[in-house]
């Protein structure tokens, strides 16, 4: 790793980095402007404005084997402001684009909940947050950009820890750098981290863990140093910003990503979503890490490590059967482990390793799995 950088080089880098952020901002603003101009022209020509939006109905969600994720098919729907049934949502979407335009221009971030409340300042009513959330997905679908690109972030936060230098791009912090191993509780993955430049790292792998408790244990046991890794707590199903960050760590820093989850069908699927996304976000790309690997806890580990187990619930079992129909679970360890879960009808949590001592998971299990990951 290069450690010493001259001041001049530093400045140059900063410039190029902020230019990169500027470019992205310009691109997003351009997309919004294009859509806005079309609506403007329609009205100016004395017509009811309209636009087309990719259909997000179940029938239009297809699995793309090449991309290894769900994508939307070719069906599109026309939204017209002449249609009184669509007029309200049409206006809501126009407002949202207008609001996103301001957020992006001013480089301000907001949450899904913020959006819901902000609408009220403009007399645009949303019945509840789920209605505004839905309009946000519409904006994503029309523009093919994730909401984070428009500075709209979810509430949920996951966290990250390890030797990673970043440089902020958000207003007031531009050029400021940070090493993510400085704070033992980890850094929360919010708008500033998601939009930050990834500068450098000594790590060679990213370990995504499902649970906060284990994340803390891993930091305490210095897994970052022992295994040259960045540790990331997904907090259950990984939020989109976290998945974006994982993708950037993989693509920009060239780091492999492994996932460590509870030994149950939900854990297996958390890993799968990191790898290939969810059907809910079929309208978006750039959220997946197709090379990500799930290393455990596998169903076969339960017997192999003689882990204490709990019985599956009805809904666990139903979930197994559902996933058996998913095209991504048709081969490899995904299919194999799912079948074993169904056979055992029992599950084990990550904490189950504590049976053998608190550090067993980091001392014994993790090294074995890291070794195994190389061959996966």
């Amino acid at each position: 790793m290069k450690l010493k950088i001259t001041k001049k080089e530093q400045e140059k880098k900063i410039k190029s980095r902020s230019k990169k952020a500027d470019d992205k901002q310009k691109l997003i603003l351009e997309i919004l402007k294009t859509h806005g101009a079309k609506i403007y022209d329609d009205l100016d020509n004395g017509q009811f404005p309209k636009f087309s939006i990719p259909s997000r109905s179940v029938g239009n969600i297809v699995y793309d084997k090449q991309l290894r994720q769900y994508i939307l098919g070719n069906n599109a729907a026309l939204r017209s402001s002449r249609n009184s049934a669509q007029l309200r949502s049409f206006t809501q979407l126009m407002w949202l684009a207008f609001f996103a335009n301001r957020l992006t221009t001013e480089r301000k971030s907001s949450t899904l909940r913020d959006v819901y409340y902000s609408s009220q300042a403009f007399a645009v009513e949303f019945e509840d947050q789920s209605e505004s959330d839905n309009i946000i997905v519409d904006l994503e679908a029309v523009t093919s950009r994730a909401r984070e690109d428009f500075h709209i972030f979810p509430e949920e936060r996951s966290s990250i820890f390890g030797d990673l230098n970043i440089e902020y791009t958000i207003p007031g912090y531009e050029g400021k750098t940070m090493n993510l191993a400085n704070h033992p509780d980890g850094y929360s993955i919010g708008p500033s981290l998601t939009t930050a430049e990834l500068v450098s790292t000594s790590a060679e792998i990213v370990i995504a863990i499902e649970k906060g408790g284990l994340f803390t244990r891993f930091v305490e046991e210095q897994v970052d140093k022992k295994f040259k890794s960045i540790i990331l707590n997904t907090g259950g199903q990984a939020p989109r910003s976290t998945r974006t960050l994982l993708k950037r760590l993989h693509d920009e820093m060239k780091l492999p990503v492994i996932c460590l989850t509870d030994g149950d069908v939900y854990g297996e699927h958390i890993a799968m979503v990191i790898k290939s996304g969810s059907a809910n976000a079929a309208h978006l790309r750039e959220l997946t890490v197709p090379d990500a690997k799930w290393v455990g806890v596998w169903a076969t580990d339960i017997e192999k490590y003689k882990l204490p187990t709990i019985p599956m619930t009805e809904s666990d079992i139903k979930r197994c059967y559902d996933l058996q129909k998913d095209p991504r679970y048709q081969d490899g360890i995904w299919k194999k482990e799912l079948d074993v879960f169904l056979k055992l009808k029992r599950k084990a949590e990550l904490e189950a390793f504590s049976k053998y001592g608190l550090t067993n998971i980091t001392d014994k299990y993790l090294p074995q799995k890291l070794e195994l990951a190389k061959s996966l």
Partner: protein
Amino acid sequence: MSSIKEKFNQISPSEFFYSNRDLAGFSNPTRSLYTAVREFVENALDACDQKGILPDVHLIIKAVDPDKPDPKPYILTVKDNGPGIDAEHIPLAFGTVLYGSKFGLKQARGMFGLGATMAILYGQITTNKPVTVKSSADGKIQNQFEILLDIQKNKPVIVKHTTKEVARKGLSVSICLEGDYSKAGNKIRDYVYETSLITPYASITFDDPKGQKFSHPRFVKDIPPPPTIIRPHPHGIDVERIRRMIVESQFEIPTIDDAMIEKVRKDLGLSVKKLSFISIMEKAKKKWKTLPRQVRVVIALMSFLKMDFEKLNKIKIEDIDMPNRKLFYWDFGDSQSKSVDMDAESEYYKQLTNTVQGEPLTTFLTKRFQRVGPTTAVKFAAFAKLKPEKRMGTLTNQELVNLSDALQKFEDFMAPDSSCLAPLGAEPLEKGIKKFFNPDFVAVVQRPASAYSGFPFIIEMGIAYGGDIKSGGPHVYRYANRIPLLYDEGSDVVLKVVNDTDWGRYKVKGEPPFIIVSHICSTRIPYKTAGKENVADRQEIERELRLALQFLSRKLSSFMSKRGQAEMAKKRANLYAKYIPMIAEFCTELSGKKKEPNYKKMLQIEIESENKKAIKEENEIENN
């Protein structure tokens, strides 16, 4: 020698109803007060209907001691301006069970006037007070009676009888009974209210025990044509009914005593005391057409006996053996039984046959049933495998059962005569609905007469939407023979038909403000219970109800869709006016323009066009 005799006690009708009073709706103080109100109000309305008088009915309920908690004694009074009842009939009419004038076959609210007597009986049982009846049948003298019922003997006991001069006809009945107005009040007020809807030609007022007055003046000046009394339809009778009809058609052989002989002499106009057999027969022949049946029979017998009055006085007829044409009699003089042969060709023989064996089948059918002509009667006889000339009196039990069966099954009888029905009519019904509910939409229909089991019936129905009607509909107002049915609606056939309807199909959604008024008129309403509250689901009635409801629902649907279109057009205009300027505002900033797009003219045109559409649809609703 001793014998053990079983003892059978015949109980009087009063006693029977006394022990089964809950059958007739007198099960508890709440229900009883309501039922008593119904019975007296319905009697008053029926009495006026029958005489074509526009009814003025006044109902008063007063607590004997207002401070007592319910249930407590109330005085219930119903006054009408009807024909009144002759003084001589009053004690029997109000003091015996099963005495009434309503035994004919025609549509009326009550059947036998039984309910009113039940109410009187109930009042007497619970308060030990007599019924007070004030009646004026001539508009000059009013007879006032206080009557108690002797339950065991089913006989009236007149406690007091006075008369006074009055200026108008009418009847007033007042009883004292145990009731619970705090619980029954709602139902009674509903009953009065709903009655006035189906009786728009009546003025009904109600003074309730709390001092409130409810007044429902008449808003229609014409009484619907009164029903006529008709003979039964062959489909509507059973073995027992036929048996009774045969008995009615037969005559007993009269006892020939002094009184009888005197009557024959008088009818023949014989002044001469001693007259020979021949001259009696000659006289009889001349006067035959004017002679009553009994006299004819005596003459016929004399013709075979060849006796004059003096000889006739000394014998007793023992038997008339029609098939063997022999007449047996006991001769008091010789103290022995004798017989004479009868000539089958003789006219007198026929007369005796009719008397002893009843009418021939075809005559019986054409004379005693509606819708049976001579041709149909002969056809039916073939169908029933009976000879057309078969005498009704000679039918065996089995033959009677077969005949009754065949009457039910024979399909060539014409549908029952509906002239005995008195529907309200589509126009007054619509008027009533409009007055009561002030609706945005109303449609009424009167179905053609139909029949179930030989009983004719007519369905009248109305449907109304919007206006003063409460949401949460359909609210169903059920009527049978102009009586509102308020209890036990769950199991009623009308409710069944309404509930089976998928209102979404008729564009009626959510908690709509709409009502259905259903009126079944029939000579016999097939009530499920004696309480007369819910109508059983006879297939034929259900079918007619469905047809009526479908017809009205289609009209409602077309109203709803026009109204829907008008509302939609209005809504669109409002939505455009609200949202398009917002879109213009947002896209101006979004596209980086300074000036708003030039859209106002387009918006104005669109809004006007939508408003015009709305007005056009609304006008169409008005015009329909």
